[in-house]
């Protein structure tokens, strides 16, 4: 490959950290995309008997949780547990109630999510005693469960979809605004450029995070509003970068030739300027995505971003931070995913910047 872009790509391929970062990103992206369908748990399904389980690979319910879960179910079914025996994955129970065991109440067993459908083995004492066999389900919660007993791994992955989608979408909007604005200002130059960039300077001086918070506090938080608010904050860097590149491109021969051929300004900007800003734009965009994801989690952490029942890494981190003394793993799971994503994106951006820098290598 001999084109500058090809050389840059092959240089990027040789940087081990950037490649590792790319692989981590692809893995996290794939996990969030297809993971929730593979874990076998629904993100909203709560297991009230298995609240705040620590992370671990053992199958649930384990003996420590089985007893209390059975007690709770027996109370609901208005029966007394007379005998409990475990044979492999099956429980043999003898239920007793002086008013007679209501067979319809057996539905509580599978509804808890911990057991399969029960089989009635024997009925004694005119229906006052019932022997049944219930299969115990084998549930796995690799990252444990949250305060409501929901599978943390599935929730982290579903939250990742939201965080990544917002990160990419808001960055894309910011990228479009920034490139259009920067290229126009840089290409037109003169008074137009001065006014446009003065506006950017003014916007830079605004306490934007405060405005975003105001906006989200006063108008009901919604995904769309947050997207708009984040994009409105983050396009400024992109505009500055693109303008600087455009200024140097404007006087180059191919642009003069295009002008001499009678092409209109919009056409020159779109066909000749913008494609040549792609390198710096790619670097800025790669470093923009982690900033956007960070801002989204920050807003969600404050309760101003993504709202229940939807969830994002920021929401999960906020939940984890609230119960940090009782269950530190609730913070660890989403925090590790968020930080890994941010680190990988930052490293990839650095690698991209190095690969595109003609002075190096």
């Amino acid at each position, binding site marked *: 490959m001999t084109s500058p872009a090809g050389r840059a790509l092959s240089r990027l391929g040789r940087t081990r*950290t950037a490649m590792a970062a790319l692989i981590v990103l692809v893995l996290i992206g794939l996990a969030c995309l297809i993971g929730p369908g593979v874990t076998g748990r629904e993100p909203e399904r709560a297991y009230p008997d298995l609240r705040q389980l620590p992370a671990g690979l053992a199958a649930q319910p384990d003996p420590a949780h089985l007893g209390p879960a059975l007690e709770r179910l027996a109370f609901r079914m208005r029966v007394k547990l007379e005998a409990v025996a475990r044979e492999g994955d099956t429980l043999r129970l003898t239920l007793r109630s002086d008013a007679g065991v209501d067979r319809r109440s057996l539905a509580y067993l599978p509804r808890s999510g911990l057991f399969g459908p029960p089989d009635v083995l024997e009925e004694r004492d005119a229906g006052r005693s019932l022997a049944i066999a219930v299969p115990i389900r084998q549930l796995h919660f690799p990252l444990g469960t949250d305060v409501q007993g929901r599978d943390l791994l599935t929730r982290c992955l579903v939250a990742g979809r939201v965080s990544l989608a917002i990160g990419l979408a808001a960055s894309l909007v910011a990228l479009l605004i920034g490139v259009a604005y920067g290229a126009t200002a840089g290409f037109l130059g003169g008074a137009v450029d001065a006014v446009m960039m003065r506006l950017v300077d*003014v916007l*830079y*001086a*605004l*306490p934007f*995070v*405060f*405005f975003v*918070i*105001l*906006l989200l*506090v*006063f*108008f009901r938080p919604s995904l769309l509003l947050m997207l708009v608010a984040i994009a409105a904050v983050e396009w400024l860097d992109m505009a500055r970068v693109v303008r600087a590149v455009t200024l140097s491109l404007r006087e180059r021969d191919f642009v003069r030739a295009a002008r001499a051929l009678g092409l209109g300004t919009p056409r020159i900007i779109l066909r000749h300027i913008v494609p040549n800003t792609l390198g710096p734009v790619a670097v800025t965009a790669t470093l923009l995505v*982690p900033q956007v994801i*960070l801002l989204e*989690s*920050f807003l969600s*952490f*404050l309760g101003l971003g993504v709202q229940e029942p939807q969830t994002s890494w*920021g929401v999960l*981190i*906020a939940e*984890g*931070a609230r119960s*940090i*003394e009782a269950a*530190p793993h609730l*913070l660890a799971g989403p*925090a590790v995913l*968020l*930080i890994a994503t*941010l*680190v990988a*994106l*930052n*490293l990839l951006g*650095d690698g991209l910047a190095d690969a595109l820098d003609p002075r190096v290598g």
Partner: protein
Amino acid sequence: MIRFILRRLAQALPTLLAVVTVSFFLMRLAPGGPFDLERPLAPAALENLRRVYGLDRPLIVQFGSYLASLARGDLGPSFSFRDQSVLDLIVRGLPVSATLGALALGLAALLGVGLGIAAALRRGGAVDRLLGVGAALTLSLPSFVVAPLLQIAFGLTLRWLPLGGWEGGSPSHLVLPVVTLALPQVGALARLTRASLGEVLRTQPIRTMRSLGLPPARVTRHALRGALLPVVAYLGPLAAALLTGSVVVETIFGLPGIGRYFVEGALNRDYTLVMGTVLLVAGLVIALNLAADLACAWLDPRLRADA
């Protein structure tokens, strides 16, 4: 130089006016008001309150009178903190935020610039390789993750430091918030210093000095003067961000700073308090950017000609 400063201050006025206008109308057009309590007030009482605070007049008249009192340096009474003016609250909150911010800025600058210099002077050395991944790591550590982790480690497990609170700014209460605020900036500053110093060290004048046999320490001192320009330019907005308080850090550690007042003001529809804090932040951003530009001009004679 004086003319440069005056021009920049004149340019700051429209920016501040834009801040005031946007936040004023943003708040007033939003649903809800400062007197929406859990238990609704009697209509007559509400009417009285609105008249006392001037909320019954047309919006544009209110805006005019707010600007007029602003010109006299009066930020108005707070709506949610009874019998206190916004200025009182700012005078109480600013020292908290400023103490935290100044300490965090100092810590970040010391560590970041120091590590950056070490990395640039020894390309491929231990510090340089550490920064390759370490800088990206600290940049990616959100304060709302670092803060609870520090609280667990040093507050709950080791019991060395308190979990939060201000207590008149006693040193033990300052450590965790300052570290949380400074940590992400260490990586950013180190990376900036390393890149900038690395570039300057490759330039012709520095190579000439080396070839003439000047001692390395003196060469480094010459190089640093130029290399610190982008770092100083970055420190301006950074100082503004740190001094005006991080909303998250003040919330998590329960510190009564500007960020907390802002959030509480926004939640309670305390119009004047929100305006006051936003205005303060914008003013500090402008002032510190100007200070950074002046420092740059002092470091680089070429920029002085411009001014």
